[in-house]
């Protein structure tokens, strides 16, 4: 009851909060930061002004009639109802305008489709509900997840200025280089869209689409998934961080060093508390959207983990690891093999087996995961469950 009242209060407070705080009143397409996005912006403005002019003429004649040819002003209706000449005129003039418009549109389109000879190839994969970026030939690959806290989404905390447009790991790219995006989907169709780059390409499972951008100015450019892809379609933003070439190189090196460090951590001996703490972070970031923070899920699409045999029965630890690694075919449960390293995976499994009253006391370690990946079986030899 009190919780209800508080919820209501927050809602009321939210309703009264001045919209002026959020004001930006953007009314037009951004010009963007690539040559191509500028050409597209120009096309947009040209066709817009053509429409405005036609609108003024057509509505002008119409409102002239509405005002001056009213019966109440004593207007007498004429009887004319045909004129081949004007019919021909108002068929051919719009046609000519369209031809004039089609020329620059076709030119721009040909440029958009020219994905040849790129300097950098980045494979973009849409997942429910995150993006994966792979720098082909660079041995760098990572996932990019929304970082806006649930409290902000649920109105329990004020929203920050990048609300819903912030991620843990942005896509870092160099300026002045032709970057080719190879876009695909892992489950359903997504669409990778960054307005400032004028790139929008559908991410279709089983197919690879190509698109490209050559960014002129360094900066942070934000976008969103544009194709309805299920429950959290609105919560998988894109952040592109464009940097000068040397900074981009430095960043690549750091990324590689980081990956090496993670590999070392796999061999470390982890305590249950460490795993639980890490596991909770991973769970909140990746699992809670479907299985819910309280482990209750949203059945039947997203089953509960609390008291679920797979998360409490000792004999099912192997299956638990398997499902996390490879997903469940034909359901929304995706494979996390590529997304999580062994440490994260061990942590989240340990967490799921001990949170929300699951209290099995069982610990699954990074080495167990490594072993499972290699042999396809869980033996439990690395840690004796307490």
């Amino acid at each position: 009851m009190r919780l209800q009242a508080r919820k209501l209060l927050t809602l009321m407070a939210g309703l009264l909060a001045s919209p002026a705080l959020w004001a930006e009143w953007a009314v037009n397409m951004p010009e963007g930061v690539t040559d191509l996005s500028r050409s597209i912006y120009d096309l947009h403005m040209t066709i817009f002004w053509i429409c405005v002019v036609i609108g003024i003429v057509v509505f002008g004649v119409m409102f002239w009639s509405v005002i001056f040819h009213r019966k109440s002003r004593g207007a007498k209706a004429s009887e004319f109802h045909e004129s081949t000449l004007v019919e021909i005129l108002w068929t051919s003039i719009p046609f000519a305008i369209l031809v004039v418009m089609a020329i620059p549109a076709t030119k721009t389109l040909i440029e958009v489709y020219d994905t040849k000879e790129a300097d950098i190839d980045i494979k973009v994969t849409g997942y429910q509900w995150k993006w994966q970026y792979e720098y082909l030939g660079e041995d760098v690959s990572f996932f990019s997840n929304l970082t806006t806290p649930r409290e902000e989404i649920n109105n329990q905390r004020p929203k920050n200025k990048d609300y819903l447009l912030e991620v843990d790991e942005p896509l870092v790219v160099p300026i002045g280089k032709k970057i080719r995006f190879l876009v695909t989907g892992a489950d359903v169709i997504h669409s990778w869209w960054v307005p400032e780059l004028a790139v929008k390409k559908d991410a279709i499972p089983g197919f690879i689409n190509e698109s490209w951008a050559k960014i002129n100015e360094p900066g942070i450019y934000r976008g969103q998934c544009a194709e309805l892809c299920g429950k959290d379609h609105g919560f998988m933003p894109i952040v592109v961080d464009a940097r000068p070439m040397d900074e981009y190189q430095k960043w690549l090196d750091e990324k590689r060093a980081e990956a090496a460090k993670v590999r070392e951590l796999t061999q470390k001996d982890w305590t249950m508390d460490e795993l639980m703490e890490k596991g909770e972070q991973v769970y909140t970031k990746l699992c809670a959207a479907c299985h819910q923070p309280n482990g209750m899920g949203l059945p039947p699409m997203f089953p509960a983990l609390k008291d679920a045999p797979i998360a409490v029965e000792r004999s099912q630890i192997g299956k638990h690891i398997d499902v996390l690694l490879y997903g469940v075919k034909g359901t929304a449960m995706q494979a996390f093999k590529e997304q999580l390293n062994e440490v994260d995976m061990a942590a989240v499994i340990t967490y799921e087996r001990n949170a929300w009253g699951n209290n099995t006391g069982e610990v699954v370690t990074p080495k167990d995961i490594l072993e499972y990946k290699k042999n396809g079986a869980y033996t439990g030899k690395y840690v004796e469950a307490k």
Partner: protein
Amino acid sequence: MTDQTIGHVNDHDDSHADHGPPKGLMRWVLTTNHKDIGSMYMWFSFAMFLLGGAMAMVIRAELFQPGLQLVQPEFFNQMTTMHGLIMVFGAVMPAFVGLANWMIPMMIGAPDMALPRMNNWSFWILPFAFALLVSTLFMEGGGPNFGWTFYAPLSTDYAPPSTTFFIFAVHMMGVSSIMGAINVIATILNLRAPGMTLMKMPLFVWTWLITAYLLIAVMPVLAGVVTMMLMDIHFGTAFFNAGGGGDPVLFQHVFWFFGHPEVYIMILPAFGVVSQIIPAFSRKPLFGYTSMVYAVASIAFLSFIVWAHHMFTVGIPLVGEVFFMYATMLIAVPTGVKVFNWVATMFRGALTFETPMLFAVAFVVLFTIGGFSGLMLSIAPADFQYHDTYFVVAHFHYVLVPGAIFAIFAGVYYWLPKWTGHMYDAGLSKVHFWMSFIGMNLTFFPMHFVGLAGMPRRIPDYALQFADFNMIASIGGFMFGVTQLLFLFIVIKCVKGGPKAEAKPWEGAHGLEWMVPSPAPYHTFTTPPDVK
């Protein structure tokens, strides 16, 4: 149409015509009378309009401000999906079938529809189809949540279990539409009164004839695509699954091969209604009748070769992209001809602005704005920026709300005196018009801005820079929604009573429907009139 005179009108000298309909519920269940069935279609469509509208209110309430307040994303997606499905298949299409049932026989001097028993059947499928569709909301896992375009594999491998019922409901709607379309064609081609040649037919009849052919052509395609989904879900096929050798994009090609003609199915009869009303209140014959007929036919033809403009971002080859861009731009030509003809009809007329005319004039202005954004969307490179944003939402609501729905309102006000024998409350109906006009523009105009600024469609929550315009849109939406209850009141009031309507309540109206008394007797034109 202009100089036609009516030889004789024969309503009452036939003894059949006098006995009225049977009484009670069974009258409506068993009726084969085109007027009864027309009324049922209209009431059904209005009920669906309110239901789909209620869902739109949920959507606008959730989007009133950033953050999740009222509903969760799961349910939000069900609302957007059901809103679309119900408005398209439950509100707009049946409303036009209702108008067709009522008016086509009276406009061409026919005693009834050509296939009255089938007419009854095609109506009575609908309540069951929609009961089934709506019931999915209460099933485990919820109703359809993949958008009204139900793209695979979101609607197959990743869909809730209720999808099977959704597929069955779509099949039932398709059967109903096809039977309705066959009936319209059979009636128009066979039951015209002597002298009513094709090129003398009122434009409403012409647009419906062409619409009916579109329906017969594309409803089976829709049935095909949902059947392929059913196979993918239950019988192990992989039409839309690349893993099994299929292609998710195939779904979109098949769907839009249905879907694009479908949007013209919703707008062509609206062109017809407006082409009846504008001449009537301009007291001047329709300008360019022949070119209007040809324009409708060209639009219908072009509607079959532009489907992939809904798919500019799926990665079709450059040549395909260019072809669909040009074909789509071309549609602006016949559509422009129609708009110019309506304006030329008003030009130098003697205009009055009764409610049907208000809605018709608003139709021309606002539909044209929707046409302009459509033209912008046809430019493929620019479409990369517009696609799947609120700009598209603004575009299709501009052609459907002040387009299709305003035309339906215009038609209802225009023919209500004929149906009920009473004049509607003129003052209230003007309030209805102005509130709808303002509410509708407040709702949908700001959507152009947020769309261009980067707000994707079908999201339950949005970044802060979109907040102001969304709040305005929601306020407009609530205003438009509430106003429609006033429309319900006006119609009920008019059915119950009101000033007596003459046979021809509009000074400038022409056509056979105005030759029979108001209200139209249960049977009209049992002996065909002579049209000269």
